[in-house]
């Protein structure tokens, strides 16, 4: 079958445009109703944004604050966390040559949860919970990534042992989490809320840190497209073509852990973004990792932002955990993709 000579960069450009539109539209939605046009003017920082409405200047100022200090940070966090999860998922799927690999399957997210549970249960860092919760979650995620890396550098470091080690770690960590919750049931509600993910911690400082980390790790990850393409043909083939497979694997797992860690630290656990986004990109832009990596970041961003908007549309007054919505959309969509894949083509080419 003839594959079209697609221009993946044009597709990526289109996705960037979609992200921009999605960000704008998202600013219309929130727990407080603001007329969309007014919200747009406020967003663009136009003078007398509320002109033509019967809104008092005081309220107009408050609306401006809502748009700029509540909605926009939340939107930016959704974009960043979605992008981080998307590119991590693509990286892990490529590194492990497994279409099901994502930060959750491998226990990296669970590691973050343990970190958070320690803060809730042992009341660590009560002085500055906004600092210590993300910090511990981040450390937990990285620690799990490093544990997987320990296997990667050993002589048992084949793709299979790495993947199974990650899966085993994920199970172990969920047992540890259950133990922590039994040990201190009072923290269980906070932890279970955290387990479903939330954008509620968004603020400009949080966004700043997240953007900073993602810009670095995301850029570095995007440079590994060629290596990942060759690694899909098997470690030996990649090596014979010049890829230092072991070293590349270590770098990729480390970078993916960092990237996942920053998302988990600020939003808790949001499922399915990392799993589904790379598959969506492969369907529209092909399987070349040079495009799958940045593409998954953009699709992940749109996905998470869309989930946030949908949550606000159906339930504007209360903030439900966003992980519920990503799962609600992600799981059926993933199954749909499975059935839509070309007959006879293996899982990897979803």
């Amino acid at each position, binding site marked *: *079958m003839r594959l079209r000579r697609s221009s993946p960069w044009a597709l990526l450009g289109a996705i960037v445009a979609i992200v921009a539109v999605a960000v704008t539209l998202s600013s219309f939605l929130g727990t407080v109703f603001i007329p969309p046009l007014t919200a747009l003017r406020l967003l663009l920082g136009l003078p007398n944004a509320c002109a033509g409405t019967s809104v008092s200047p005081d309220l107009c100022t408050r609306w401006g604050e809502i748009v700029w200090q509540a909605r926009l940070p939340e939107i930016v966090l959704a974009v960043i966390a979605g992008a981080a999860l998307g590119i991590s998922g693509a990286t892990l799927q490529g590194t492990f040559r497994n279409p099901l690999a994502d930060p959750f399957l491998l226990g990296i997210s669970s590691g973050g949860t343990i970190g958070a549970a320690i803060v809730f249960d042992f009341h660590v860092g009560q002085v500055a919970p906004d600092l210590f919760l993300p910090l511990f979650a981040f450390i937990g995620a990285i620690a799990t990534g490093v544990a997987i890396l320990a296997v990667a550098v050993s002589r048992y470091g084949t793709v299979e042992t790495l993947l199974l080690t990650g899966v085993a770690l994920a199970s172990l960590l969920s047992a540890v989490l259950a133990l922590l919750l039994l040990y201190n049931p009072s923290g269980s509600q906070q932890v279970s809320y955290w387990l479903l993910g939330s954008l509620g911690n968004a603020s400009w400082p949080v966004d700043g840190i997240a953007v900073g980390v993602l810009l670095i790790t995301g850029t570095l990850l995007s440079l590994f497209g060629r290596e990942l393409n060759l690694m899909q*043909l098997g470690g030996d083939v990649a090596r014979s*073509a*010049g890829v230092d497979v072991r070293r590349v694997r270590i770098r990729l797992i480390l970078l993916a852990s960092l990237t996942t860690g920053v998302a988990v630290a600020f939003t808790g656990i949001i499922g399915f973004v990392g799993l589904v986004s790379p598959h969506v990109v492969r369907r529209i832009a*092909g399987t070349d990792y040079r495009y799958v990596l940045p593409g998954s970041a953009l699709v992940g961003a749109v996905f998470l932002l869309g989930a946030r908007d949908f949550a606000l549309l159906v339930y504007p007054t209360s903030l439900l955990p966003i992980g519920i919505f990503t799962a609600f959309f992600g799981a059926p969509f993933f199954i749909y993709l499975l059935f839509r894949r070309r007959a006879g083509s293996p899982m990897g080419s979803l």
Partner: protein
Amino acid sequence: MSGTPAAAPPLRLVGVSVSYGARTALRKIDLSVRSGEFVALAGPNGSGKTTLLRTVLGFVTPNAGRVELFGDALESLSILERARRVAWLPQEESPRDDVRLIDYVLYGRYAFHGLLEGDSEEDYRLGHSILEQVGLADRADDGLLSISGGERQRAVLARALAQTTPLLLLDEPTSHLDIGHQLDLLARVRDLAHRREVTVVAALHDLNLAARFADRIVVLSRGRCVADGPPSEILSEGLLAQVWGVVADLRREPRTGMPYLIAHHLTTAPRRPGSGTGFGPVHVVGGGGAGAPYLRTFADDGYSLSVGALHLLDTDAEVAEALLIRGPIEAPFAPLGPEVRERHRALLAVARAIAVAPFVVGPSNLANLEDLLPYVRTTPSFLVSRPSIAERDFTGGRATQVYQQLREAGAREVTGMEEIVRELRALSSGPPTSSA
């Protein structure tokens, strides 16, 4: 290739030994491959061909000895530098993604790209010219998963060629291909070796392909190099028996002048002097497992065999099937029918000798004995009398009667296998009794 002294051989192994745990895969291999040579590594499964290639690629570290690529010790070269000198065509690459062929071929350019460098126009030109060399010029935009298995192996070859290395290693590159694609792929590789001075080392278990395409064959056996030279010099029936354990005819192909082999059977038992390869057919009558040891022994001795009417699922029938011995088969437990008996008699008619194993005779197979009568008069026949027929007769004395008639008609009574083996040897080495 840049920076490689022209005088240094593309590949040199000096006393290379490799073990996997307690198992030694390669023992003190010395090998020097000249520039532009097509060398085939031959040897049975497990002889070390793949290990040798993997050692050269740096996937396996030798316990002793050294590997040199164009004069440089392998371990002194980085993975990138190796990729610029050696490319590898694996036995089978199972791509999972439907990549465009041209993109897939350009994956092979990895070792030549900088960090942020994209595929240049020059890369694309190279990729297209390589696709043309492997006969896939018009498939450049097709997906890797949409082409046939034979085309895919050529695409994998194209990816390896895109590394533009002066040395190419192939590991059983044709084992999953049909005969047409096997010839096509190896002819392309050989042309490449001769036209572009690419040195080729290929593990090939098909000796006929190796003899046809390689300039030189290196034969490995249990990790040792046992023969090394041009196909016409080193291939011999003795080498085949020694290394592969097969009895084969070595012939010369009239058009190409190349040696080729027709393998006959395994040399599981050492050939005894005087045993008759090709003598026969020796017809064995058995049943219920009584005939199996006779079939095996005679097959090992190299006689051509046929076997008397047997029942489906009978032990002897299974042994005969495994040894590819022809014989009529009846339904389980049924008395032998007229058709089966007819075919049995046809086999008896052409037999050069008949051996009757001490099988248990019942109503369902009594006919096997009865049908022998006309033939034992003219054909040397042997009746095994231990255990005696009386002990094996479940036909109310009828079998014992027939046995007596067979003896009277000229069948010789023998005590066991050894006596028949002796007699057959005498028969096969003596002057031919007839032109049959």
